[in-house]
């Protein structure tokens, strides 16, 4: 080949540049990511999944859940509500000021200005930040997805098609393990219009022995097997349910701030 070296060099530079952009730069940015601090709290996020939840990721992957479900919430931006916490020494002036101002759905700058006015009048206020966007209004989460959500996931199951809902915080939306298992066994028994295929093969339908199994599902009559039979989840189903319950992207982080409605719900006491 004529100019072989030039062709090689050009190809090397072209591929090397894209490698730097797509592999090296992200690794430098996020390769050393660690658990992040939750805003206004001593908690860290995400908690390392243990036991069944770790194995559940592989079941999620094997069943191809990511073909129809995403784990990334998108948001358009944030808006602020200013909440009056204390009217201060001059309640009449503050309340007349507050009634003349718009306190909800403000941009950050407008909220700061309003808070400033209230402070000048002697009152005290809090600014509540919340994310906006279609996904948020659909109830698929409280903030957009961030890299920290996937810290312990390997491989990351981002997903690229929404034939079903986003699952970033399915553990918050449906925190009951029985609901999850029933939904896997017979999706239409819990959500009427669902188009999700049934994952019956993750369950064992067997004859009730001397006593019913403690794991047996309470299946509605329409979807239940014949009398004398029970539906028992296999380890795979339990692992998948544990993984789904562990998807709880609902804490404010530095890169995705918002004001949580009450105390952060990521504490172990809240995990069901």
């Amino acid at each position: 080949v004529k100019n072989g070296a030039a062709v090689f060099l050009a190809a090397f530079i072209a591929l090397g540049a894209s490698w730097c952009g797509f592999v090296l730069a992200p690794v430098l940015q996020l390769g050393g990511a660690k658990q992040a601090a939750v805003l206004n709290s001593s908690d860290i996020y995400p908690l390392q999944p243990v036991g069944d939840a770790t194995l559940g990721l592989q079941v999620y992957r094997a069943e191809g859940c990511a073909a129809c479900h995403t784990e990334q919430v998108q948001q358009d931006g944030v808006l602020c509500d200013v909440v009056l916490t204390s009217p201060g020494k001059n309640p009449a002036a503050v309340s007349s000021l507050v009634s003349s101002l718009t306190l909800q759905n403000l941009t950050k700058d407008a909220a700061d200005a309003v808070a400033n006015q209230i402070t000048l009048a002697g009152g005290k206020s809090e600014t509540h930040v919340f994310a906006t966007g279609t996904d948020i209004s659909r109830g698929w989460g409280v903030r957009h997805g961030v890299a920290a959500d996937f810290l312990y996931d390997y491989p990351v199951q981002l997903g690229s098609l929404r034939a079903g809902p986003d699952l970033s915080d399915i553990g918050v939306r449906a925190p009951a393990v029985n609901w999850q298992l029933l939904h896997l066994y017979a999706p239409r028994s819990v959500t009427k219009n669902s188009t999700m295929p049934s994952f019956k093969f993750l369950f064992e339908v067997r004859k009730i022995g001397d006593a019913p199994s403690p794991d047996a599902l309470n299946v509605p009559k329409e979807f239940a097997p014949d009398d004398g039979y029970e539906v028992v989840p296999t380890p795979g189903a339990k692992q998948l349910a544990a993984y789904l319950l562990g998807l709880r992207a609902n804490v404010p982080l530095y890169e995705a701030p918002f004001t949580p409605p009450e105390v952060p719900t990521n504490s172990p006491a809240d995990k069901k």
Partner: protein
Amino acid sequence: MGGPSCYIKFGTIMFILSALMLIVSGCPQISRVTQFTWFCPAQVQLQIFGFFAMIMFGAIYHLLPRIMGFELPFPKFVRAHFWISIFGVLLFVVPLAVGGIEQGLKLHDPAIGIAGVTRATLPFLRVSTTGQLLLLLGSLMFAANIFVMTFKWKLALLKTAFAAVIAPLETSEVKS
């Protein structure tokens, strides 16, 4: 119309189309609607079946008879496969893309539940499956041509080898 060169022409057009789809879905204003919908699979399938597979079919139909030294066993299948592929690819990809856009618009309306959004795409997916079945039919025709041809070629090779084995030796090679 329908010879191997037509495959290459159609494949090239589909390559340009799929590249345009990729560029369009890279624009933030448009990707707001098309992301997470069937539009992206439509683009990928157009690239695979419209561009890559078509170019490969054309190349194989053109090269194979020249390499093996005899004509394709079912030459009429080449033409039929071409037209079936065109309709198959279009029936496969166009409903997916249109359904994807509709799905994207509906995903942006929080009043419509996710189940409603998915159900709205089902008619598109059904038409799209028809296209896939057409593609399967075309591929079966392709396979028939290739397998029969390979079989004939191997048979011819065997025959030649067998003939060489049982041929009487030249007198010059016989030891006296």
